[in-house]
Every structure is written in structure tokens, then in C-alpha cells.
């Protein structure tokens, strides 16, 4: 047990920070379209070239390094489908090259990256299917939630992936979303802390009001809890830890989303202010997490078999 980055992780972290400062961040997201962006192939190429997308090798059970990379990408508001490549792909028989969209079997409706994906990964109760290429063309859906979204109406059956455990894939899909949520929530919390530190009303900084301090302190607890639980889950990789991480990350959004907006006042409602770039993404990620099956229910049932129906 060690809560600090080791030497290799620190080196990756520093190199990632440099790369992301140059090729990601809110300005880059705005170039791509802000709350309605196009896919950032360029960022993906840079990450690939630097070797950051293959940190967890095939079959690897410890994907913590990959999770740390994904967290940094999410904190920098990267518009790439890297979480599946970093965290899910090691559980699949074939390497994923290019964006994929991860959905639950029976999914019908909008899905993140569906219009950009080279393949769909369809997680069922008993099997995982690989649909490549996806049904073409997938129509784009306006979401204004900060991601490129495509409409999936008739998903072809695709091929069953042999020797793939659907529970394992679902677990990593949950961890991936939890990590992405953590990155976006950290961004939102940082923005709100910045706003209330600068903004003066009643001749004092808003951040000096205890109500605001307590509210943001609870955001911090929620985000830290979700963060460490997700990182621990990425280390352990069990379905139970994964369900707990996503459940807690979703609970954290219920604190972070309304509060960060609340404390940023009307400024938080403008396109100009970066807060919404993160909070709208939070809504989408949460929706995606729920669409993969209720994680809280999954956790309870995994832990207490007597609760399964």
C-alpha cells in the first residue's frame, strides 16, 4: 500500500501534463466545438505516439497506471475515447485501434463516440460482442453535453468474443467511467474554488462564507472518495470494487454538479465560463454509467447474494 506515485508513475504524470497542456484543456475543447465537440483525433495521435495508450498490456490485471493516465486526460477535458482502450482493452482478445463505443446489450438510442467509433463493444449478461465496423452511417446526435454522440438504433449482433468474461469487461467499463467522472469533477470543483476565491460580494470573498466553504468541502470529500476508490478499483479490478467506485462517483456528482454551479452564480450559466464544459460532461458520463446497469444495485447484489432476485 502506497498512496504516492512511484518514480515511473511520476515520470508519466509529468510527461502527460506537458502533452496535455499543449494538446488538451478547455481552449482545445472550445476549438473542437465546446459543449458539442468533434472527436479529437489529433490528441489521440499524440497520446499514441508518446506511448501512453498502451500502459496496461494485454491481460494485465493491474491497470492503475492506465487509470492515472485516463484521469489526467479527463481532468484536461480531452475529447477522446481512450478510457476503453486504456482500461477495457486489456481484457479483450484483440487490441483496439481507434475509438470504440461501449454499450450494454439491447442498447438503443444515443451513445458517446458511436458516430466516430471503429467498433462497438456490446456487453451482455453472458457474452461480449464486437461489432466492427459499426452499422454505417451512425447519425450524429446533438447532446450539448460535451461529447460527440451518435444514435444507435439497430445494433447488429456482431461477433461473440471468445474467452471474454462479460462480468470482467463490465467491471472495467464501470471503472473507466468512474475515472472519467473523477477527472471532470475535479475540473468543476477547481473552477468553483477559483470563482469563490476571486469573487467579492458584501465586501468579502464569497469563499469566506462558511456556507460556501462547507459546500465546497463536501465536494472535495465526494471527489476524493470517488477518486481513491476508483484508483483502488483499477488496482484490484474486481467487479465489486468497480461497482462501488462507479456508485460512489455517481453519488459524488449529486454533490458536485449542483454545488459548483450554485457557487458560480449566473457566471456558471454562460458559454464563456469553462465550468459547464466539465459539468455537462458529468451529466453525460453519469447517464452512460446508469445505462450500463444500475451500479448501486449491482454492488449490493454482488456483496449480498441474498439480494439477487
Amino acid at each position: 500500500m502506497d498512496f504516492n506515485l512511484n518514480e515511473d508513475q511520476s515520470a508519466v504524470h509529468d510527461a502527460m501534463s506537458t502533452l496535455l497542456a499543449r494538446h488538451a484543456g478547455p481552449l482545445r475543447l472550445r476549438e473542437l466545438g465546446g459543449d458539442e465537440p468533434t472527436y479529437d483525433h489529433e490528441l489521440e495521435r499524440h497520446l499514441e505516439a508518446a506511448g501512453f495508450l498502451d500502459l496496461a498490456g494485454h491481460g494485465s490485471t493491474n491497470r492503475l497506471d492506465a487509470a492515472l493516465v485516463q484521469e489526467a486526460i479527463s481532468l484536461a477535458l480531452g475529447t477522446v475515447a481512450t478510457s476503453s482502450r486504456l482500461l477495457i482493452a486489456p481484457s479483450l482478445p484483440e487490441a483496439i485501434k481507434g475509438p470504440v463505443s461501449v454499450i450494454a446489450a439491447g442498447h438503443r438510442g444515443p451513445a458517446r463516440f458511436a458516430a466516430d467509433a471503429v467498433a462497438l463493444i456490446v456487453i451482455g449478461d453472458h457474452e461480449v460482442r464486437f461489432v466492427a465496423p459499426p452499422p454505417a452511417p451512425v447519425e450524429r446526435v446533438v447532446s450539448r453535453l460535451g461529447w460527440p454522440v451518435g444514435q444507435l438504433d439497430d445494433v447488429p449482433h456482431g461477433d461473440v468474443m471468445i474467452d471474454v468474461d462479460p462480468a470482467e469487461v463490465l467491471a472495467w467499463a464501470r471503472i473507466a467511467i468512474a475515472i472519467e467522472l473523477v477527472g471532470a469533477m475535479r475540473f468543476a470543483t477547481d473552477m468553483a474554488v477559483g470563482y469563490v476565491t476571486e469573487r467579492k460580494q458584501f465586501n468579502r470573498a464569497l469563499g469566506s462564507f462558511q456556507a460556501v466553504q462547507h459546500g465546497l468541502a463536501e465536494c472535495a470529500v465526494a471527489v476524493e472518495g470517488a477518486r481513491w476508490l476508483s484508483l483502488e478499483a483499477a488496482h484490484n479490478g474486481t467487479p465489486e470494487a468497480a461497482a462501488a467506485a462507479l456508485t460512489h462517483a455517481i453519488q459524488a456528482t449529486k454533490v458536485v454538479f449542483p454545488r459548483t454551479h450554485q457557487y458560480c452564480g449566473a457566471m456558471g450559466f454562460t458559454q464563456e465560463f469553462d465550468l459547464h464544459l466539465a459539468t455537462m460532461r458529468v451529466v453525460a458520463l453519469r447517464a452512460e454509467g446508469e445505462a450500463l446497469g444500475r451500479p448501486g444495485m449491482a454492488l449490493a447484489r454482488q456483496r449480498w447474494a441474498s439480494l439477487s432476485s
Partner: protein
Amino acid sequence: MEFGWDDEHSGYRTELVSFLNEELPDHWHGETAILGSEANTKYSRRFAGLLAERGWLTPHWPVDFGGFDASPWMLAVLGEELWSRGEPRGPQYMNANWIGPSIMANGTPEQQARYLPPISRGDVIWCQGFSEPDAGTDLASLRTRAERDGDVYIVNGTKIWTSYGDVAEHCYLLVRTNPDAESHRGITVLLVDMPTPGLQVSTIPGVVGDHSFNELIFTDVRIPVANRLGDENEGWTVVREALSYERVGSPRWARAAFMLNETIEVATADGRTIDPIAIEAIGIAKAACEAARVLSYRVIDERARNIPPSPNGNLARVAMVQAERLVAEACLAIDAGHTLTYRSPSNYQFRKSLAAGVAAGAYEVQLNLISRLHLGLPKG
């Protein structure tokens, strides 16, 4: 104590609902049904006109001003039925609720003759010029300056977040006339006709649906002294009185309940199953709407009895904010992945719910007032 509706009010509700069922289906959908959109504001002119023809736009106004002194309960039924359909009066609910009454209470006969008839005809848009870049929650620190020059005021300064500022014909504007007085003291209300030379309006793109804010920059704008509402430097009292019941004037809980219903209907029509988790969330959200409703009714009861505004208004408003947020949660539980579609009810409600604790004054300020006035806690 009893909680029934008398015949007059339940009869009115029936009549109103049947009018709405007849009028709305042909007009009230798509962008028109989104409060704050251009189409919505445009339609409000037709709709408010139809209400006016029936005497329902300003029923609570005194007979002298074209109303029939209807009880606050009738106004409540009206507000509730309209907000439960998403508020087809558009921005004009503000005119009827508090701008008109404020002009009645403080206006000169000339002002009343000029401004009230268009309001009661349902064919005028007002905007509210209160907030400034440095005066949000601390509204009394506003600095837009009005200096007297003979029979005009020369106004300089910036207003921000002005909803409807781009389409309004008039602005109910708060200015500072005495910069030396204690902050609440030197404020005055001016009724500004728009557009007017020196007033530059620009839109600030927002994230809440189609609702957009505006910035109003005043550069040497000349406003006749005849357009001052109430006495000079008495604006704070004028506006506080005007807004004293507004905490329940917009029954947001009714719109939230409407969105809940919409989300359920869209999902059901789409053939989706709503799982037990979502069903429980729906129940919890619906109960919160009901709590906000009954707390609002308590305020209306006070008003009907001419009891001065109490912290019950703050309780009701906080309950409304909570209801809006729980409805957003329930909508997301129902829609799950479908939230990713911009026009889905849950996508819309999530954005809307954000404004609830900010738009009509900060949630925390309501909590401060409840702590002090309702719980009697000592001042910090």
C-alpha cells in the same frame, strides 16, 4: 384548518383547464414550449392576449385597473395551471405578478395610464434590470449611476444577466441616485423604454436551453424624470414591496412536476421500461414537488389574509429548489442514456434545475433568512 378548494376556485380551475386544453395543443410544442426561447416569447403575445380577453391575465388587479380583485387563490390556480404546462405566458407573468402592481402602487397617473393597459392587454415584454457585474447576491451594492440634469436623469453603467433584455419594450431598472448614502438608501427605480439612444444590448450565450442573458450598457442614456417610479432614493423599498410575494409567484414546483410527467410519457411512448430504481426516484421527486406546493399554499394563505410576508416564503422557495433538483435526478434515472439527446426531457431539466438556486436570488441567502427569522438563530 382545512385543505379543500371552494367552489369558486375549483370552478375556475375547470374552466381554465378546458381553455388550455383547447388552445395549447396547436401551438404549445417544440421550441415554443421552452420558456425563454424566441418562439416562446413571441407566442406569449398571442397567449396572454387570449387570457386578457377572458379577464384572466390580471384578475387580481383592482377593478380600476381592469382586473376584478380576484383573490390570491385565483392567481395561484392560474400560476399553477400555467406553470404545469411550462408557462405559456412567457415573460409576461412578471408583468402581471409584480411589475404592474408596483406601477399601481407607486406610479403617477400618467405612468399608470401609459404602462398598465399594454400589460393588461398581454402585449408587452418587460425585463428586469437589477444585477450588475459586481452586484449579484449583494444587489444593494449596485452602481449604475443616474445623475439628475433638469428634467432628465443621465444614466451610465452596466446591467447583466438581463433575461429578455433583447426583446423587451421596457426595463424596470434599478439605479443609484445617491452614491454617498448607505447602500440601500440611494437607489431609485426608473422605467426605461427600449430601445433608447445610448443603451446597447448584447446577448450573452448561455447553457440553459434557449434562455439567453443580456448585457445592457448605458452610456449617457437620458431618461425623463417623469419615468421615475416612486420617490428618488426610495427604490429599495419600492422593489422589496413589489417582490415580497414573488418567492411563490413562479410555482417552479409545478413546472418540475410537468417535466417529470413529460419524461415518463416520452419514455413510455418510446417503449422503454422504467425500472424500480427510477420509479422510486419518481416518487421521491413527486413528493418533493407536493411539499413545495403545500408550503407555497401556506404563503398564499397568508397573502389572502393580508398577513405581511413571513419567512414562510423562504421555506417555500427552498423547497422549490430542492424539488427541481430531485426532479432532475428522477428524469435522469428514467432516461439514463437517452439524456445524451439534447432535446430529451432529462437533458433539459438538468440544465433548468441549475438555475433554480440562483436565478431569483441565491439559495444560501434564503437559508440565512430561514435560520434567522424562522429558527431565531443568532446573527453571525
